[in-house]
């Protein structure tokens, strides 16, 4: 049986030179993302905005959107979003946060149930009061920053500061682009989105580190090689792995997007964008070329480890 080979052996793309194209592209995309974030804004779900969400199913094609709309408008609850989902008679109702503290939010569910009656199936009811939504938002932001910080510290210990800085710039770029994506497509931004962002962060780093690991190894082994050539070689020799891994992750994520159900749909779509499109691109075209600007040369490691610079050297060159 002939095995599948996506990336041919001995590729030799000049990824480092490509930075003259990829860096401007990334800068442009980041500006687009930031503009989208600032103008369109994120579509905050009730986790962060507070309010009430009901998912209701009308049995046997009894759904009449106009009727639902007029009934809910009669309640005078302020901003109400009504959205038909799927074609199974399901409606998603979002009611904005009510003035009047925690009790006022609780009253909404009772009113909606009262007007829609008991013949419909209440599949999901979520009420988040103003206090909790504030906290969840700050938890989410703190969580993201904490994760970036912990990872930075770990990388700094494990590699050199140049690598830690390079990885965090690359990460920041990932998060900015993903948030821009969520703003442009107005994907629900809720707690699971924070989970998605953190996972994208983890994945993208995972990828970056695989390449950085190789760069470090090459730096130790080929002390005379020019940095650009060395970086290129490192990216090329890990290219097959990068591509194969991304095919498998894409397969897993596509399964989640297509079959995972609506409850995790926005999560899966965000992940698909962040991990597959941004993460891979970043580790190859941004994170590694960045090292040139951060002044990584063979001396970066040599000065630090004068004697035990290459513990594996003996075995490599017998």
């Amino acid at each position, binding site marked *: 049986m002939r095995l599948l080979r996506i990336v041919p052996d001995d590729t030799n793309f000049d990824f480092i030179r490509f930075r003259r194209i990829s860096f401007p592209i990334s800068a442009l995309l980041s500006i687009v993302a930031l503009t989208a974030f600032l103008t369109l804004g994120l579509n905050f779900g009730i986790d962060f905005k507070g309010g009430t969400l009901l998912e209701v199913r009308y049995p046997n094609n009894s759904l009449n959107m106009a009727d639902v709309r007029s009934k809910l408008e009669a309640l005078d609850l302020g901003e109400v979003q009504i959205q038909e989902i799927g074609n199974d008679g399901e409606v998603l109702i979002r009611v904005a946060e009510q003035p009047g503290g*925690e009790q006022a939010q*609780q009253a909404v569910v009772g009113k909606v149930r009262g007007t829609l009656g008991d013949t419909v199936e209440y599949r*999901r009811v979520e009420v*988040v009061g103003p206090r909790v939504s504030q906290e969840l938002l700050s938890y989410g932001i703190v*969580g993201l920053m904490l994760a970036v910080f912990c990872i930075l510290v770990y990388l700094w210990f494990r590699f050199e500061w140049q690598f830690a800085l390079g990885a965090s710039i690359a990460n920041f770029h990932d998060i900015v682009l993903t948030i821009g994506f969520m703003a442009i497509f107005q994907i629900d931004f809720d707690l699971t989105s924070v989970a998605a962002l953190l*996972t994208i962060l983890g994945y993208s780093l995972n990828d970056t580190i695989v390449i950085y690991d190789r760069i470090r190894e090459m730096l130790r082994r080929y002390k005379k090689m020019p940095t650009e050539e060395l970086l290129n070689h490192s990216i090329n020799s890990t290219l*097959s792995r990068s591509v194969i891994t991304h095919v498998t992750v894409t397969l897993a994520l596509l399964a989640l997007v297509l*079959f*995972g*159900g609506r409850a995790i749909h926005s999560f899966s779509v965000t992940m698909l964008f962040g991990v597959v499109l941004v993460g891979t691109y970043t580790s190859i075209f941004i994170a590694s070329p960045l090292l040139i600007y951060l002044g990584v040369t063979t001396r970066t490691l040599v000065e630090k480890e004068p004697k035990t610079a290459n513990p594996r050297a003996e075995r490599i060159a017998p």
Partner: protein
Amino acid sequence: MLYFSKWKAIAILAACAIIGLMIVPSLIPSAAYDALPSFLQRKIVLGLDLQGGSYIVLQVDQSEVRKARLEQLRDDARRVLRDDRIGYSGLGIQGDSVQVRIREGQDADGAYTKLRALAQPIGGALSATGQLDTDVSRDGNVITITPTSTGIQARTIQAVSQSIEIIRKRIDQLGTTEPSIQRQGSDRIQVQVPGLQDPSRLKALLGQTAKLSFRLVDNTMSAQQALQGRPPAGTQVLYSDANPPVPYLIEDRVLVAGEDLTDAQPSFDPQTREPVVTFRFNTNGARRFAEATQANVGRPFAIILDNKVISAPVIREPILGGSGQISGSFSVQEANDLAILLRAGALPVPLQVVEERTVGPGLGADSIRAGIIASIVGATAVAVFMVATYGVFGIVAVFAVAINVAMIMGLLAMLGATLTLPGIAGVVLTVGIAVDSNVLIYERIREEARAGRSAISAIDAGFSRALATILDSNITTFIAAAVLFYVGSGPVRGFAITFGIGIMTTVFTAFTLTRLMVAMWVRWRRPQHVPI
């Protein structure tokens, strides 16, 4: 890297098998599960988003705790000053403290000493911190008593503990399976009740303070007059729950309070066939109720729940038996719930619902189905791709990943962790990461072989180089998962758990099982070239 001693190999296989088999108790029917010895009775709990149910977060209002504490301090101060016959004026609550003016200058020193004794060390007399829960200060003849913020905090924590007990009693009466009631932070209570169709009854049961009292109705003037003018000292106007609400002028003095009830049961009034709640007092309550009713025959008294008048019957004859009934045109369910509330007792302070998430059983079942389908499709696609890319080594990878998933599930069961829909997504993503560790190893082997090494040497070097990378890259991902677990709640935490466990098992299987299987294959086939 490719040599394993026999015992090491056996230990690796045994560890994988044992951890993987821990999933079995979660899969067998419940009758068989109950027959298992207790150390094996550990299974995966389905999250509320999968099995349906309600998640409710209640909060103790600190301002209510402060208010209750201030009222208590005011009453204590009054008692202390009266007991010592110290003349005072203007005793009352001013903002966040209680103030009193001592009439005579020479009494002020004594009063100050006495009132200072109201401050108690936080955490009881045995506490080592020496902090007091109340601050007493004096300015000339004016003494100010202020609860400290640490004192209020300690009281809030105490109120949460008491409330948890009472809530547990209330929910147990609903007869639902496995409710979970936990403290969340310093002032919140998290309630999870699986399998409820309609949480409104649950919320009604949780949202009521259920402070019951029996008090006399003041009939020196009508409630209307009191509303227009000023209610007489020691009385206040309270309303009934009817529509429109009926006002009553009620004395502040409590004849008997809810704490003196020993039992409450729903039943029917023999004459009117209406649902009522019958109750019994303890000895103390019975005696006080008997005295009060004896002294007030012909006057109406009111039964008050959470500052609402439930009913206000006229005392026709002294009630000496220590039992009675509450009628208030209840439905059967209302009578039932009121009996539950009275049996469980009153909450120390009112609780507010600050977050609620309910998933109906229909949606839960749909989510489970979607999760299973996505897992199967994802796993199959990845498996096919791996075998197509790596042949025999692909089969090794697929096997290792399958064991990996079984181990994740086994560990979840061992920890009694909750599996949520995002948790299933975590498992699917782990499949992606686990495969990556194999890809790293195989690609490295290929590289080493192309660099001119013999097959066995290439495999050996490939493993030793790739494992270092796998460790580095997985630790960073694990940091992200740990942070997620720390800051996340509910479903997000479910994702962090499976993702975190998945990273650990991935590293474990890469270092042991995959290596062992490849080593066994090498010994068996003695390959001349690397088959990938």
